[in-house]
C-alpha cells in the first residue's frame, strides 16, 4: 500500500525525501519530508524534522512537524517539538510537548 516503508529494525541516518507515502516502523535521524502522507507507527523513533501531507503519529517524534494537511497524534504517541498544520488532533494517551501553529 504505502510506497516507502522503513522497517522495524532499520535505522536511517540522513535525509529522506519522497513524493509518496512514507511509513516508519524503525528509526530515522536527520530529515524526513514527503509530499504525501507520513505515518510514524508504534515503536518507531523519529529524531528529525518531519514535513508532509497528513501526518499520523503513534510512535515517538523529536523534532518539528510541518504538515500541509492534518496531524494526528494517536494513543501512545510521544512528540517533542512544534507542530504546524491546518488541523491537529491529539488523542487521549498521546504525549505532546511543544507549540501548535494553526492557520487561524
Amino acid at each position, binding site marked *: 500500500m*504505502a*510506497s*516507502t*516503508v*522503513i*522497517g*522495524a*529494525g*532499520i*535505522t*536511517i*541516518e*540522513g*535525509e*529522506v*525525501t*519522497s*513524493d*509518496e*507515502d*512514507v511509513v516508519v*516502523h*524503525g*528509526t530515522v535521524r*536527520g530529515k524526513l519530508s514527503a509530499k504525501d502522507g507520513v505515518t510514524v507507527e508504534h515503536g518507531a523513533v523519529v529524531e528529525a524534522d518531519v514535513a508532509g501531507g497528513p501526518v499520523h503519529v503513534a510512535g515517538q517524534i523529536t523534532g518539528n512537524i510541518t504538515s500541509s494537511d492534518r496531524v494526528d497524534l494517536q494513543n501512545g504517541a510521544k512528540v517533542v517539538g512544534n507542530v504546524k498544520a491546518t488541523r491537529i488532533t491529539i488523542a487521549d494517551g498521546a504525549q505532546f510537548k511543544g507549540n501548535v501553529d494553526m492557520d487561524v
Partner: protein
Amino acid sequence: MASAGSRIGPSTVIRGSIRGAGNIELEGRVEGTIDVDGDVIVGGNARIKSPVSGGRVVVRGAVAGNVRGREAVVLEDGARVVGDLVAPQIGIRPGGLLRGHVSSGDAFSASSAATTPRAARLPAKPVAVTRAKEVPPPPPTPRKNEAPARTQRATVASTATSKLVQPVASPLTKPARSAPAPIMPTLQKGAKAALKKKAR
C-alpha cells in the same frame, strides 16, 4: 517480503546511511551507505550510489558501489553495477552488466581481499593511465629515432674529421711515407749515375 521488511519507493530519495536488521527492497534512489542484516533487493528502477551490504543481495537495477553479500550476490537481468562484488556465492544472470572485481568463496578471505584489491586496484588504474600517457610518446620515439640519426650523422662527421686529422697527426702514416723513402736510397739512381760518371 516488502510487508515484512522495508521498501524504498521509486520516488523516494535517501541521502545517508541505511542500517539495521530485516529485509529491504530498494526501488528509489539512495546515496550513502546500505548495510542490512537481511536480504537486499535492488529493483529495476533503483539508482543506488552507495556500497550495498546484506545477507543475500539481488540486483536488478543500477548500483554504483561495492556490493557485498554474506550469503550471496545475484545480478539479474537489468542489473548495472559499477563496483566490486564480494560474496560466498555470486551469480550473474544474462543481461546483468558489471564493471568491477568479483571475489567469491570464503567470506573472510573475500572480505579481506575486498579491501586489498580495491587499494591495489586504485593505484593500478593510475598506472594504466600513466601507461596510456606513455603510449602517446611513441610519436616521440620517432623523434628518438631521428635523434640517434642526428647523432650518427654527427659521429660520421666526427669520424670524417678524425680521418682527416689522423693522417696528419698519426705517427703510423709518417713512417708509411718515410718507408718508401728508404727504398729510394737503396736504389740510389743518382748514386749509380755518379758511380758511372766516376767510372767513366
